[in-house]
């Protein structure tokens, strides 16, 4: 039985083992045998075992209200006090398992994928740093440590996206990810400070009780909530800060699976789930609309992308939008549920794409072809026969993300859609939210099957390359098999076996708590609404998923509908989608360029006016003054006074030199004279 302090010890170990691996690998990794990968893999496997034992303990206790908090004082300046600590409840434990599990599979996958990389040990070191910071976010019980680890996660993301920094695009993508995140983080910081000013504490529980006592309310609370949510917008890549995530695919594919699909981008969702009780109704509405819009909007971009990883990247943005939408409509348990299932199937999809890219890469390498893009789906096709394990695991994950029954995605997506439907039933003016949700569901099913058909079915587009395609080694297929099997519903509904209801250990152990803001519906009311909307939502979601899959089959499998003709017919929309709604271009034109112009104008004012006349003028005056002082000092003081003292001393010395005769008797005479003088003076 794990209770009390042992949980604290476990959490400390889970938190710090990866950072120990990081320290070892970054300093001496290169000199260790196998470049130190076993240090990182060992550390992460131990954290996996520890997390799983905490999960087992959670099952044995079966206590939905389990909560364990430890904290210690970090900075204590009387009125200003910062405390750090852990807050462990069932959500934390599940999230720890997700992080440890995905991180372990990434470590194992990378053994093969990153083999022979020039910065192999550094890569493993950064993975350790990331796992450490992610666990820090998961365990945090206050906004300050959350923020610290939030930034650490940003740094490790930056380092890993830019792993191949010799490539210009990778270095730029890393910078873009970091800077875009900064925009959100500023909002997050403002939110934290607003909360602290009003309540005087960073601790989550203190915040909740402070808000329920009305220490902060009204528009200020909404503003603080939106500020904190802005952090989540940046990290979870929501509209309008979604631009960094697709570019982040420049990083190694296992990193994309770990950070930019399963865990790091989920940190934003985790933050909103964690802090759900403190969002005001207005803030929640903003959250819902941002999430819903992102879900639909990103899905429409994913439809036309040809780069296999870009499709998955926009799919991730869209799925994260789903989770945010669920938080916004108050169904945050469903958001967390989707986070959990999404982590498994999306990591699986990314490993699958990694496996395909790996195979393409090797085949192209043997052909000595360095111009063909190994990630472009138009160069693939028919890989099913060559890579059966990759195909089947990816197919399972695709069924899961599309929301087909018997898979986990069906349950979590259904819970979210039921939540939005219930919300719209309660507030008919927000009818757009379920439209966003169901629309995105249809498109998701379509583009995911498009990906599968283009990659694995049909004829090989490049027969020469196709000949060299092989199934990936075991270190890469093992994570695929593991994660695709975790996509089956049964792992989430135990001890019940009904595949159409999400009723199971998850819903029983993780229960929604009431919002502490007046005006929000209680958890019971939300649950009641969802319960009623459950079956209509399920029927609708099956319908739209079926429609999406059917369309994809007709277009890309049976070729009954020509994709080319359709894209030509809807030329304008197609171009918009293919170019990602020209977001990067418009940001460049309306945001970056004006800022650059402003910067240039300021630089001109600063450099050519201020510096030239004021600063340089100041310099000239100083120079002149210095010259004057120099003259005074050298000619006056030095020559007359300082040297004068020296000359006087020298003169005296020369005079006194004559006394020194070198004759012993003279000295005796002087001594005698001295004695006589002393005697005479004493007598007087």
């Amino acid at each position: 039985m794990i209770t009390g302090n042992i949980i604290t010890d476990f959490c400390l170990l889970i938190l710090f083992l990866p950072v120990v691996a990081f320290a070892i690998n970054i300093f001496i990794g290169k000199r260790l045998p196998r470049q130190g990968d076993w240090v990182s893999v060992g550390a992460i496997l131990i954290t996996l075992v520890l997390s799983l034992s905490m999960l087992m303990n959670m099952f044995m206790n079966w206590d939905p209200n389990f909560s364990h908090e430890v904290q210690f004082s970090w900075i204590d300046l009387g009125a200003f006090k910062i405390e750090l600590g852990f807050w462990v409840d069932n959500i934390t434990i599940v999230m720890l398992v997700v992080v440890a599990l995905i991180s372990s599979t990434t470590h194992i996958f990378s053994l093969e994928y990153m083999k022979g990389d020039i910065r192999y040990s550094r890569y493993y070191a950064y993975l350790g740093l990331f796992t450490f910071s992610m666990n820090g976010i998961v365990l945090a019980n206050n906004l300050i440590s959350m923020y610290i680890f939030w930034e650490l996660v940003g740094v490790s993301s930056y380092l890993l996206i830019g792993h191949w920094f010799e490539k210009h695009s990778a270095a730029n993508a890393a910078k873009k990810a970091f800077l875009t995140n900064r925009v959100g983080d500023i909002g997050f910081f403002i939110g934290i400070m607003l909360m602290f000013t009003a309540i005087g504490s960073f601790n989550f529980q203190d915040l909740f009780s402070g808000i329920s006592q009305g220490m902060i309310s009204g528009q200020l609370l909404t503003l603080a909530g939106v500020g904190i949510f802005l952090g989540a917008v940046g990290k979870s890549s929501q509209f309008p800060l979604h631009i960094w995530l697709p570019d982040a695919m420049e990083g190694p594919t296992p990193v994309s699976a770990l950070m930019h699909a399963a865990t790091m981008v989920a940190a934003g969702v985790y933050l909103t789930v964690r802090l759900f009780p403190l969002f005001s109704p207005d803030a929640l509405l903003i959250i819902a609309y941002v999430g819903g819009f992102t879900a639909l909007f990103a899905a429409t971009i994913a439809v036309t992308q040809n780069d296999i990883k870009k499709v998955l990247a926009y799919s991730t943005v869209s799925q994260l939008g789903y989770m945010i939408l669920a938080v916004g409509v108050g169904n945050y348990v469903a958001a967390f549920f989707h986070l959990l299932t999404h982590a498994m199937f999306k990591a699986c999809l990314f490993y699958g794409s990694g496996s395909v890219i790996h195979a393409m890469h090797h085949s192209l390498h043997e052909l000595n072809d360095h111009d063909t893009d190994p990630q472009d789906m138009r160069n693939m096709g028919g890989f099913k026969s060559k890579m059966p394990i990759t195909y089947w695991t990816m197919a399972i994950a695709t069924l899961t993300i599309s929301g087909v029954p018997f898979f986990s995605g069906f349950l979590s997506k259904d819970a979210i859609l039921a939540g939005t439907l219930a919300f719209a039933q309660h507030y008919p003016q927000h009818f757009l939210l379920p439209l966003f949700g169901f629309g995105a569901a249809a498109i998701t099913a379509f583009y995911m099957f498009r990906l599968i058909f283009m990659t694995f079915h049909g004829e090989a587009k490049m027969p020469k390359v196709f000949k060299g395609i092989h199934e990936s080694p075991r270190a890469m297929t093992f994570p695929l098999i593991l994660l695709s099997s975790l996509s089956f519903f049964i792992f989430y509904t135990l001890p019940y076996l009904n595949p159409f209801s999400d009723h199971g250990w998850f819903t029983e152990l993780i229960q929604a708590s009431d919002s502490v803001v007046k005006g929000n519906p209680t958890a019971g009311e939300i649950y009641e609404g969802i319960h009623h909307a459950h079956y209509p939502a399920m029927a609708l979601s099956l319908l739209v998923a079926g429609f999406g899959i059917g369309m994809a089959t007709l277009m890309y499998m049976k070729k009954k509908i020509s994709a080319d003709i359709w894209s030509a017919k809807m030329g304008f929309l197609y171009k918009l989608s293919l170019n990602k709604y020209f977001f990067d271009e418009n940001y460049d034109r309306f945001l970056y360029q004006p800022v650059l112009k402003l910067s240039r104008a300021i630089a001109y004012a600063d450099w050519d006016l201020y510096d030239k006349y004021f600063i340089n003028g100041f310099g000239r005056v100083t120079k002149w003054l210095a010259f004057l002082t120099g003259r005074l000092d050298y000619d006056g003081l030095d020559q007359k006074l300082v040297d004068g003292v020296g000359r006087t001393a020298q003169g005296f010395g020369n005079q006194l030199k004559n006394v020194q005769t070198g004759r012993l008797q003279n000295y005796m005479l002087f001594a005698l004279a001295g004695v006589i003088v002393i005697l005479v003076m004493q007598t007087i």
Partner: protein
Amino acid sequence: MDSLTNYLFVSAALFCLGLYGVITRRNGVAVLMGVELILNSANINFLAFARFGGMNITGHVYALFVIVLAAAEAAVALAIIINIFNNFKTINVDDVSQLRQ
């Protein structure tokens, strides 16, 4: 006239003679002899004060002390003079003035 005064006169005379010898003699050995005279004048003072001073001072011990010390001093000084002679081939103290330069 008190008898102590007589002794002191003798002592003072002896001191002056010794000092004169130290200051005027060029010969190192003669300088040394002057020093011996000075020491002995001090001895006379010690004994005179011990005998007539009425202050219950045991000066004899110091007189013996000084005699022993003078012997030791003479030995060392003669050794120095011999060394000077070995180095300069003279014992005229005026010629031994290298420290001046």
